[in-house]
């Protein structure tokens, strides 16, 4: 489990770029092809995350933070980019546990 916000974001990017493609490949290739996410990558507009990807992504965040994500929190402003996810779900350094 990450210890701080920077570690969480690194783990999140590693999950999106390396682990998720092994679990699930979106039906439509991300645009541009071979795209790797950085903190500001638009996850849905680029096609990196699709309807199955979001389920895996939520599971990852829940496991990494140790807290369930209420459905009402699953909105674009919280999931638009890796930075937005980090800011929302790991917003108090060292107090996330």
């Amino acid at each position: 489990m990450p210890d701080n916000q920077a570690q969480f974001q690194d783990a999140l990017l590693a999950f999106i770029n390396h682990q998720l493609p092994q679990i699930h490949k979106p039906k439509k290739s991300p645009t541009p092809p071979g795209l790797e996410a950085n903190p500001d990558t638009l996850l849905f507009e680029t096609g990196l995350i699709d309807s199955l990807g979001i389920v895996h992504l939520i599971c990852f965040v829940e496991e990494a933070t140790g807290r369930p994500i209420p459905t009402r929190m699953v909105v674009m402003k919280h999931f638009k980019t890796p930075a937005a996810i980090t800011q929302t779900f790991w917003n108090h350094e060292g107090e996330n546990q």
Partner: protein
Amino acid sequence: MTAPLNTSARTRDAVAIRKFEFLDQALFNLALELGAQPLQFPSLVCRSVLEKAEYPKAFPHLILAATPVKDPSAPTPQLLNASNLGEPHWCLSPAVCYHAYAHLAGQKLDSPTILTARGRCFRHEDYFDPGRRQLEFEMREIILIGPADWVSQNATAFKDKLTELMIHLNLPGDWQGAQDPFFMPVAKGQALMQQIKETKLEYCTPGPNPLALASVNRHADFFGRRFDIRDDQGQFAHTACLAAGLDRWCHTLAQERQFTSSQPLTPDDILSQLAAVLPGIAHSLQCDQPLRDAGIDSIDLVDLLFMVESQFNVRLTETDMARARTIGDLAQTVLTRLQHEQVTK
């Protein structure tokens, strides 16, 4: 386990039918103003159409199938047993717009297309709440098919027009992100994506028990791809639909308490409301003028009945309307009913 339903929809009496048609006419007029072509579709939809639209993946629990019996000579108790039912080729339409995509399947559109249709829809709901949640209900939909930008811009513009209409009809509410009853957990991702991308917005009534009266659904090129509908550039067409639940509109108008005795009702109030509903006639109306002399016929009278009921939230009978010879008579009837309601509360 929930008891089986023994009714699929609320029965409409003469007044309800008139209200229903009045509301649909308002929506239909709006659709025509927006350039829609009217179409009428059947109540049954081919199973393969729903499968192409991936409806069974998202909402398997809502499907109602229409199927023949295998052995028509079977005795009554066994005739409709599951073991005597054949393979369903048809389903009851769960929404209107699937017919539109099937209608345009395989076509390249010369220009963006707007369609409107009203249809009976059927969903296997596990409880019945008359006017709010029914097994069978009617929707009018306005369906947009064309290039991505055109659909996006027009869906927003049409949503604003629809909002104006609902406010004009005393149907207050606001737009919210929808949470469709996707079948979980199979379609959990679709439900979450709908919420994230706000691909479906619903116009919900205010209060603790909100009711979705209308929705705007943006499908991107989902149906364009599945039904091979292309825009004038040869790209898969994008689609969106605006859907209005007519039963819910009627129900909400009957429930809304727009008027209380603290708001004085005068013949002039009714006259001004009448002018809004019947602009071609009311300009010459006087409070003491017989309604029929002013050119208001029996059809107009039912429209007027509906308008007065929804605007002032009183229940009037057709006899009340027949007895109301003038606007002044009508105002007096409404006032009497309101006072009676206050006393009996």
